C-alpha cells in the first residue's frame, strides 16, 4: 500500500439546504480539485441516499480511487454508512474519511456564509491529508465462550438469567444471600399491578 499511487475522491454533500444553504458547496468542490492526489470530485444533493452512494461506488471504479473523503455530516451518524458503501465497491472501509461540515460548520455558522465556506475548505483539506495517510485495517474477531455470569439474584438478576437461559445459554447466577429474591422478596405487593412480589 505504501508505494501505491494515491488516488483520492472527494464527495461533497449539499444535504439539501442543510449544508448548501450556508456553504458554497460548488466552491468547496472546486477547491477540493486542487488538493494533493485528488483525482475525482463529485457533488451530491444527498450523499447518504442510494444515488449518492452509487456515485461513490461508480467513481471508485471509474477513477480507481483508493481513498475516499465524504464531505458531509458527523461521522457519528454516517461513518458506518460510508464504510459499508466503499466496502461494497471493494475498498477497505478504513480508507474512507469524513469531513464534518454540517454539525461543525454550516449549522453553527449560518450567519457568516463566507467564513463558513472558508472553514469548510479547511476541514476538507485536513480530511484529505488524513485520508492520504490512512491505512487499510482488518477487523479481528475472537471466539466467545457460550456462557454468562449473572451477579446478583434479585429481580433484575433473575430476569436476566431466565432470558439468557431461555435463549439456550449456560448461566451462572451468583447470589451472596442463601436464597435468591433480593429486596423484591421482602415486599408484599408490587405496584402498579398490586400483585404478590414472589
Amino acid at each position, binding site marked *: 500500500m505504501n508505494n501505491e499511487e494515491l488516488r483520492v475522491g472527494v464527495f461533497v454533500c449539499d444535504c439539501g439546504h442543510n449544508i448548501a444553504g450556508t456553504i458554497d458547496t460548488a466552491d468547496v468542490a472546486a477547491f477540493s480539485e486542487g488538493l494533493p492526489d485528488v483525482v475525482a470530485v463529485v457533488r451530491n444533493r444527498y450523499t447518504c441516499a442510494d444515488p449518492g452512494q452509487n456515485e461513490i461506488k461508480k467513481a471508485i471504479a471509474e477513477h480507481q480511487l483508493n481513498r475516499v473523503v465524504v464531505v458531509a455530516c*458527523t*461521522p*457519528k451518524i454516517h461513518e458506518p454508512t460510508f464504510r459499508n458503501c466503499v466496502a461494497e465497491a471493494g475498498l477497505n472501509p478504513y480508507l474512507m474519511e469524513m469531513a*464534518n461540515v*454540517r454539525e*461543525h*460548520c454550516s*449549522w*453553527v*455558522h449560518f450567519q457568516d456564509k463566507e467564513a463558513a465556506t472558508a472553514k469548510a475548505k479547511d476541514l476538507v*483539506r*485536513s480530511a*484529505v*491529508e488524513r485520508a492520504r*495517510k*490512512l*491505512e487499510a485495517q482488518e*477487523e*479481528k474477531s*475472537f*471466539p*466467545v*465462550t*457460550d*456462557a*454468562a*455470569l*449473572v*451477579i*446478583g*439474584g*434479585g*429481580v*433484575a*438478576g433473575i*430476569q*436476566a*438469567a431466565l*432470558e*439468557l*437461559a*431461555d*435463549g439456550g*445459554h*449456560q448461566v451462572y447466577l*451468583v447470589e451472596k*444471600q*442463601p*436464597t*435468591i*429474591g433480593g*429486596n423484591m*422478596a*421482602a415486599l*408484599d*405487593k408490587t*405496584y*402498579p399491578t*398490586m400483585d404478590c412480589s*414472589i
Partner: protein
Amino acid sequence: MMDVGRHPKIKTLVNSEVEEVSGFVGNFRARIRRNPRYVVAEDCTACDECARVCPVAVPDEYQQGFSSRKAIYLPFPQAVPSAYILDMENCLGSEPIACGRCAEVCEKKCIDFDDQGEVLEVPVGSIVVATGMKVYDPRMNDEYGYTRFDNVITSMEFERLICAGGPSAGHLVRPTDRRTPKRIGFVQCVGSRSATRGVPYCSNICCMNTVKQTLQIHEHYQDASTTVFYMDIRAFGKGFEDLYRRSRDNGTRYVRGLPGNVEEDPETRDLVVTVENTTTGKLEQHRLDMLVLAVGLEPHKGNGKKTVDEILNLSHTSDGFVLEAHPKLKPVDAPTRGIFFAGCVEAPKDVKDSVTQASAAAARALNLLGAGKVQVEAITAMLDTEQCIMCGVCTRVCPVNAITASNKKQKQFPSIIEAACAGCGTCAAECPTDTIAMRHFSDAQILAQVEAILAEDRMSKILTFACNWCSYAGGDMAGTSRLQYPPSVRLIRTMCSGRVDEKFIWHAFRLGAPLVLVSGCHFSDCHYIDAVTWTQKRVEKVWSRMEKLGIRPGRLQLEWISAAEGQKFARVMRELHEHLHRVTPAEVEETIRILEKQPPVPGRSKTAVAAATA
C-alpha cells in the same frame, strides 16, 4: 424465582461471591467462592425438623426483626433453593455436649458442620451485573424519631406487617401494643432529595410505594385514615396516576410539606406530627397511631471487601451508581465491553423497570453470545517490541487492563490483548519510546491534520483536539441545536483525549498555532474509565514545560465538554475566540524560535530515552 431453580441451563450459586474476574469480552474467567452453608442444599427436604429442635432464637432478618428464627432456618417459605442454612455465628456448635441436636434429628443426614465452602472457576463470555442497592437506614440521623419511637417504622418494615407471610400474618398491627392502627401517616423522601441527609437524588420508587401502601391499608381496613406528607408526588409511570387517584379517592389525605417535628404521647404511644402545610401556609398537627417512613435507595458501598464494582473496574456517576457506556445509546452497557447492567445497580428503579432493564441487558449479552464471535473495531493499539524498554507505563495507564505486564528480569515484553483494547490511545501517548502505535489514529495521520489546519492563515485558528464520545459529540450537539459560535475552531477527532500525545501539541506550536485546545469528557463520563486523568496530567506537564521555555501556558487550554453540553461547547468556542485575539504574531514567532532551538520532547528512540534517563 421457582423458574430459576428449575431451569436446566441455570446454575444457581447462592451463598456465593465473585472474588475475581479476568479476561476480556467473550472470554472472561470468574472465580466464585461459595461460603459454607453447613447444609447440603441438594439433599435438604426443608422438613423443618432441625429448626424445631434448635434451641437458639435470633431476630429474623427477613421479617425485619419483628419475629425470630432459629440458628438453622429457611430464609423464607418460598426460598430458592428450598434448603435450610445454618447460621454458624449463632449456632451453639456440633459437639454433642454443646448441642448438635439438628444433626441428630436430620433424617437425610445433610447437616455438615465441617462444610468449608468451595471455590469455582467458570469461563463466561458475558457478565450481567445486577447487584442491586441498599435501603436507606434512618437510624443514622434518627429520622422523625425512628430510633426513639417504636411506632415510627420504615416502608420496608410496613411491607412485612401487611404481608400474609409476615410476623402478624397480614394483620396490620403497630409495634407497641399490637393493635391495628387507625390513623397512619407516611413521610416521603426520607433519605432522598436532601443535600444534608441521605442522598441528593430522587429514589424513584418511594412515592408509588407509598401510594401502594395506602391502597393496601384501605383494602384491609376501610375505616382507617391515611395521611401522606410529601414534597412532590412523582407518579410518572404507566398506570401510576390512576393508582394515585385511587388512593386520593379512597380518602388518603396528601399534605404538601414534610413534618418539622414528631413527638410521642408517652401514655398512648401515639405520635404527634407537626407540619407546615405549604399549600395552605398553615401549621398543622396530626395525631397518628403509626408513622411510616418512605425510605430511599442508596448505592452499595464497600465494607472492606473488594466489591463487584472494584473487581470489574466499573466507574460510578456522581450519585454512586455505576456509569453506563452512554446514558442514552448504551444505557445497559458498561464501558468495558461484554459487561452489562440490570436493576438498581445502575440507578434506583422499581420492579417493572428492573425487569425491563434486565431483559435489555440479557438481549445485549445474547447478542454477543449468539454471534459466537466478537469483532473488534480496528482502532486498537499495536506494539513493536523492538523499541520497548519494558518500563511498564502502558500497562499502568491502560484503563481496561488490556496490556499484560512486562517483566524486565525475565525479558518479557508487555503484550496487547486486542479483544480487550478499547482503543483510547493513552498507552500510545504515554509510551516514552513510541513503541505503541494506534490503528486508524496514527501519529502520522494526526500530525498530517495538524499540518493541514495550520498551513494557511494560522493566526485565525484554534486547533482543537476533541474526543469522539464527549467533546466532538458536544460539538455535534451545538450543531443540531444551531448554536452559533465564531468559525475559528478546527477539530481533530481522537477516540479519547488520552490519545493526545504531547508531541501533537508541540508540533502545533512549532507550526505557529496561536491557541491549542485539548478537550475531553468530564471525569465521570470518560468512555475509557479514567483515561482522561492521564490527559489532565499530560496537559499539566506541558503547561509547566511551556512556563519553563517562556511560552505562555494560557495558549494551551483544557476543557471538559460532555456529549450533552452543546451550550458549553459553543460558549467555550466563543471565549477562546476572544482569547485568540490576544495572541500576537510576534508571540507566535517567538514560540517557533524557542521550539526550534530546543525540542521539548526528547527523541523517542530506545537509545535516546535510555540516554535521557541515565
